[in-house]
């Protein structure tokens, strides 16, 4: 002790009294971090920590994961089923049987009255895979509507579509370990430090050991763009042009991997003919990247012994989303960068279990990447489930975005929304609101009663969240990991799996379709129909997943029987020649003509509206908006706006301004920063009644994913700042 003190003051440090730790995989993004939740003597979850020996996160968590245990008793949770005759009536509490009977009866009534597909089901990427599988079986096997989709259409549909077009199947071929082997990385519209902080940390660890060029394509100077060796501040919506120009240089200068192209792909001639039109000079005028830089990037990428590309919403949420993914795949294929360490085309997925829904929910087809369009797949699953093969539609139905258009047009009359909130998340909220008002029946099943979509519901089913349930999730690198129940859902709320099984009972009175009750049992059923498929999980079970802190697929029964341990990480797809999933085993090189159909700034709406994510928030903030130690970093909507534009318009730091688009308006606080150009504002999408009041969301022709990131707005000064503050506060409950 120093400073002449004769007495030691006591040292007091908070002690949460943890007596037990329970294992789960994180329920926020798709990184797939292993978490342990600490319980105190009363069994209350009081703390979270990263699992030290998990290969994905190696003991780390981001700020959302660190406070994930606070979700369980966060505000707005639903605790009891609710019902009402009309959405403008008051809610009345009810019991589960009444609520579920009503759901069953309304589905059958609407289907009987307007046809089988007039009732739509929209789920999510948030639930557990066993729940997705059960919901898929219920929907495809018993309810029989073809208008069944997940909100993954809003985030990953373009990646799915692009992978399917290029490789013949969905399924990201790379893994996080690729960072440790790559010699060049291009990040397309992906801001890892903010969107996927743990994946960023893995990248950073790799870069501290071994420097390699980092090239970032992003119209905004994100932290990753700042760290980039080469930052390409591209004109929004013109990625395909840049990709074509890069391929132009590679092919013109003979930098391509001819042997790989020869052995593994088809379509090089058509591709060559298309990209010939995109010489760097021409391309630079469209995409805003100068021709020398285009050449430098093309050469750097093509000459790297192993080069990888990652992307996220900057590519997917565009009218050329699927094409952008194909363009990335094209670049990887012509340089031989698929299926080798450090050479990959890795879609950084969005939601915690977006991959699980892609693999198992039967939204876009049938379980494990089976297709409705494929008679053998229909037959196999119909037999396995014990239903009539003819009950399956012969091609997939509408995507989520198109389902809403069909509600608008009066073709769909009833809707079951599960763990998703289109009132916040779909583009052009005014249009969504109108559609919701028109529904004859809407059931919202969510862990949060204050999910804004519930205002148009006739039945509300309170569900468990995350580690109140048991099951698995698949992450970006195809790693399946398990969630164990840490605690019980609050009040009368029930796990989604229980709800699906109860609904299934009502459609399955003769009991001909089997619905196992527990997640481990369902997992084994799924495993049994995964044998020999791309996503073969037949060697896995829940115990193994917890023991190994997740296992990447494929891991087969054969491997398990041979005693072959699943690798800690580093598992890739398409590592052998000609193993792509097109019938000939070859990947497709697909030419990508560029059609500019974006809403671009003009005289009336002169500013680009760019939307995106903040690290502290998750989607519509139903979770993070209630956790103070997440929410406080950005508690109200704001725009990043260029200070020069502010000076010109007389906007002061912290002023509220009104953004106006051709759809509607929004009130936001101005945060001047040179991070964005003078003709662009960046608006986080998390806030209800804000970004999506403005977005146009033109749909990608292949993936039907909305182009959230390319709209045009104008900015108006608000004279009455006090009134603006009041409105901004009133427009959302949290």
């Amino acid at each position, binding site marked *: *002790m*120093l*400073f*002449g*003190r*004769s*007495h*030691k*003051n*006591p*040292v*007091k*440090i908070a*002690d949460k009294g943890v007596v037990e730790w329970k294992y789960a995989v994180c329920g926020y993004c798709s990184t797939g971090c292993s978490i342990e939740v600490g319980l105190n003597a009363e069994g209350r979850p009081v703390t979270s920590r990263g699992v*030290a*020996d998990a290969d994905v996160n190696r*003991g*780390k968590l*981001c*700020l959302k994961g*660190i*406070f994930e245990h606070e979700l369980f008793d966060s505000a707005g949770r639903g605790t009891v089923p609710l019902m009402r005759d009309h959405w403008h009536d008051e809610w009345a509490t009810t019991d589960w049987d009444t609520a579920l009977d009503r759901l069953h009866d309304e589905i059958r009534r609407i289907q009987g009255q307007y046809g089988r597909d007039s009732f739509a089901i929209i789920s999510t990427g948030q639930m557990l895979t066993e729940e997705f599988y059960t919901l898929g079986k219920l929907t495809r096997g018993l309810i029989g509507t073809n208008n069944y989709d997940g909100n993954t259409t809003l985030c990953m549909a373009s990646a799915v579509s692009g992978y399917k077009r290029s490789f013949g199947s969905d399924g990201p071929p790379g893994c996080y370990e690729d960072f440790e082997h790559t010699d060049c990385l291009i990040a397309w519209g992906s801001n890892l*430090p*903010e969107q996927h*902080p743990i994946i*960023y*940390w893995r990248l*950073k660890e790799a870069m501290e050991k071994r420097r390699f060029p980092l090239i970032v394509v992003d119209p905004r*100077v994100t*932290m990753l763009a*700042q760290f980039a060796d080469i*930052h390409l*501040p591209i004109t929004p919506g013109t990625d395909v042009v840049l990709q074509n120009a890069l391929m132009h240089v590679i092919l013109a200068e003979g930098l391509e991997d001819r042997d790989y192209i020869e052995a593994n792909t088809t379509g090089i001639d058509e591709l060559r003919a298309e990209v010939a039109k995109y010489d760097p000079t021409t391309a630079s005028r469209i995409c805003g990247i100068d021709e020398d830089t285009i050449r430098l990037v093309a050469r750097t990428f093509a000459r790297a012994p192993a080069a990888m590309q990652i992307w996220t919403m900057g590519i997917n949420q565009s009218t050329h989303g699927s094409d952008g993914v194909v363009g990335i795949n094209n670049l990887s294929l012509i340089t031989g960068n698929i299926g080798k360490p450090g050479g990959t085309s890795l879609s950084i997925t969005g939601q915690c279990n977006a991959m699980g829904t892609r693999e198992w929910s039967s939204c876009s087809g049938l379980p494990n990447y089976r297709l409705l369009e494929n008679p053998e797949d229909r037959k196999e699953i119909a037999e396995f489930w014990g239903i009539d093969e003819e009950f399956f539609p012969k091609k997939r139905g509408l995507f989520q975005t198109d389902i809403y258009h069909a509600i608008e047009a009066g073709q769909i009359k009833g809707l079951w929304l599960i763990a998703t909130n289109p009132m916040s998340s779909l583009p052009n909220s005014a249009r969504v609101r109108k559609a919701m008002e028109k529904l004859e029946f809407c059931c919202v099943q969510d862990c949060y009663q204050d999910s804004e979509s519930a205002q148009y519901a006739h039945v509300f089913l309170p569900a468990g969240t995350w580690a109140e349930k048991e099951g698995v999730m698949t992450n970006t690198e195809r790693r399946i990991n398990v969630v164990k129940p840490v605690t019980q859902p609050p009040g009368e709320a029930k796990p989604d799996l229980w709800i699906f099984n109860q609904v299934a009972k009502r459609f399955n009175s003769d009991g001909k379709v089997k619905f196992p009750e527990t997640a481990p049992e369902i997992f084994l059923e799924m495993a049994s129909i995964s044998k020999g498929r791309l996503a073969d999980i037949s060697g896995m079970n829940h115990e193994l997943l917890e023991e190994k802190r997740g296992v990447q697929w494929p891991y087969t029964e054969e491997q398990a029987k041979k005693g072959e341990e699943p690798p800690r990480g580093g598992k890739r797809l398409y590592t052998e020649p000609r193993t792509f999933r097109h019938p000939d085993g070859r990947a497709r090189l697909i030419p990508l003509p560029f059609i500019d159909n974006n809403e671009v700034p003009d005289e009336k709406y002169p500013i680009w509206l760019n939307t995106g994510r903040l*690290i502290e928030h998750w989607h519509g903030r139903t979770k993070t908006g*209630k*956790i*103070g*130690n*997440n*929410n*406080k*970093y*950005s*508690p*109200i909507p*704001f725009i990043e706006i*260029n200070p020069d534009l502010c000076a010109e318009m007389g906007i*002061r*730091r*912290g002023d509220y301004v009104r953004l106006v688009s051709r759809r509607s308006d929004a009130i936001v606080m101005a*945060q001047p*920063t*040179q*991070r*964005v*150009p003078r003709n662009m504002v960046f608006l986080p999408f998390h806030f209800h009644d804000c970004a999506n009041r403005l977005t146009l969301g033109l749909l990608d022709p292949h993936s039907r994913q909305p182009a959230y990131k390319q709209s045009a707005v104008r900015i108006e000064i608000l004279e009455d700042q*006090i009134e603006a*503050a*009041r409105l901004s506060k009133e427009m959302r409950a*949290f």
Partner: protein
Amino acid sequence: MTFIRRENEPEYALLRDTTAQPVNRYGRPIELTDPRHDEPFRVNDEPTPAENPNRYKQHGFFFTADNCIACHACEAACSEKNDNPAHIAFRSVGFVEGGSYPSYQRINISMACNHCDNPVCLKGCPTRAYTKFAEYGAVLQDPDICFGCGYCTWVCPYNAPQLDPVKGQVSKCNMCVDRLEVGLKPACVAACLGNALDFGVIENIPENRVQAKTEIPGFPRTDITHPNIRFQQTRTLQRDMQRVDLTALKYHRDDKEGRYQPTVDPKFGFRREWNWKKLLGSHENAHIAFTLSVQTVMGAFVLMLGGSLTNGPMASFADSAAQLPTLGLMLLLMAFGLFKLNMHLGKPHRFYRGFYNLRLSPVSREIAGVSAFFAGLAGYSFFALFDNGLAAAVQGFFAVLALAGIAFGGYYMYKLYRIPARPFWDHPYTGMSFIGTGLTLGALLLTGLALAYGLLDTTLAKYLYGAAAAGLLLEGLGLVAHRISLKPASSEGAASFYEQTTRYGWPYWLRNGLLTAAFATALVLYLGGSDSPVGYGLLALLSLAGFIISRALFYVVVIPTTMPGAFFWKNRGFIEHAREVGLADMPQLGVAYERHHPFRLDELIATLRETTLQQKIDQFRRIFTG
């Protein structure tokens, strides 16, 4: 329970210093010696396993500013471990940014306590809630001792101590000494996702790092406290790095010195505003009331005593009927000031702890001095009731006590504002203003009573108006000197001056006008030896208004040398906005309202009961022994 270390803690979380320098860059030994070395180190009243071989070395954080991504993982890990509500954070990340699109740079700075060699918090804290332990050199604070005056939050240049307006107490970074004891780095370091934050024996440069600077833009100068933090920042930054919060500051590169200096950034233009509500409605009102009333009474007392010396101008006043009401009024004013000050504490019932750090804290000394003055004044007044030789002698003793209280308390009242981390206050003006206030308002107090009792003859008027004019002159000269020194300065003080002349531009000029008019009036009244009640009324009004605005400005525009904030978080401007428009009603916003705290008599009685006589004696002894 002590911290439980897992068997498989990851490598990055482990402390791994194998060597240490003998002395740090400030010339102090890194090995810390402590006469009480062998007393066990206890956390939560449990002995900790004595395993860490580097326990008695000064440790500190190492921050690679090049790498920070502002992911908030450090802040979250810290708040999670310490169970802090949203509005309190021992560690915070702020930004500075510069350049033009797309050549734009943002530097994120994660900052907690720097466990300084010269912990000004420890020295400033009147309650002795702070200890600098030889164990790790950790500066630890005990909220159960703290009475919530917030003085540590004034003196710390890094905004490390956190005053919780809800609990009414301070708490701060504890270096995770429980983790250190089991060989683990602090929770924030283990959580870092940018490989920016590290920790170890001070002056050791971590693996893969090459620099150990003490300067990055936005980080205050190090000579105030000798902080135990080192930086790496190798990327070339823009010439101007701006703060994104609403504080009118940026950091400008001084090519000659090779470092960034805080410079005014006129974010809100040069429009003058009134902002009465903010000016007079601040939580610092208690300080305005306390300093003004105590200085008035002190001034009045000195003038009264000085003027009562043989044949002095106050001699007849002292014998008159006016004396007792005057003393009564002075006592009342003192009581009011002390009451306002005490009730402004987060824990008013712990008032008695204000003396605890008499050895080091100017606040303790101020409180001791002012209390002595109050006691002297009370005794002096009481014995004024008696008219005999003994009473006069005792009264004389109390007068001396009161004068000693004025000298000691008055000096430390001034001294406690000479805070290097608050450049706007750290100027002789502060002292000139305090004396000026005492002279002017003290004189006017006496004048008012003299007028009321018909005692204001020419001599007395000249004496008192002369004092009032002198006080106003002192305040005026102080203001001019303050302005001259601050306006061109490269410091937070210049930003304070900018705020003073823009956001509070009209009150500022009104104050200047009022004081000038008051001075002119006082001069006229002095020269004329006037006994005009109208003249007096005018002067009293002008002076009082002038001094109240002056003192309000003093508190409201001060800008500490704290770390830059973010756009919402740790942005003083947004915090004020959230309180004004009611956003702060939402607890998850992370902004709590300022509030007053009750005097918990029950708690005071419980403390009195629960502490043994021996403990009370020890506590008293430590006021002098430390």
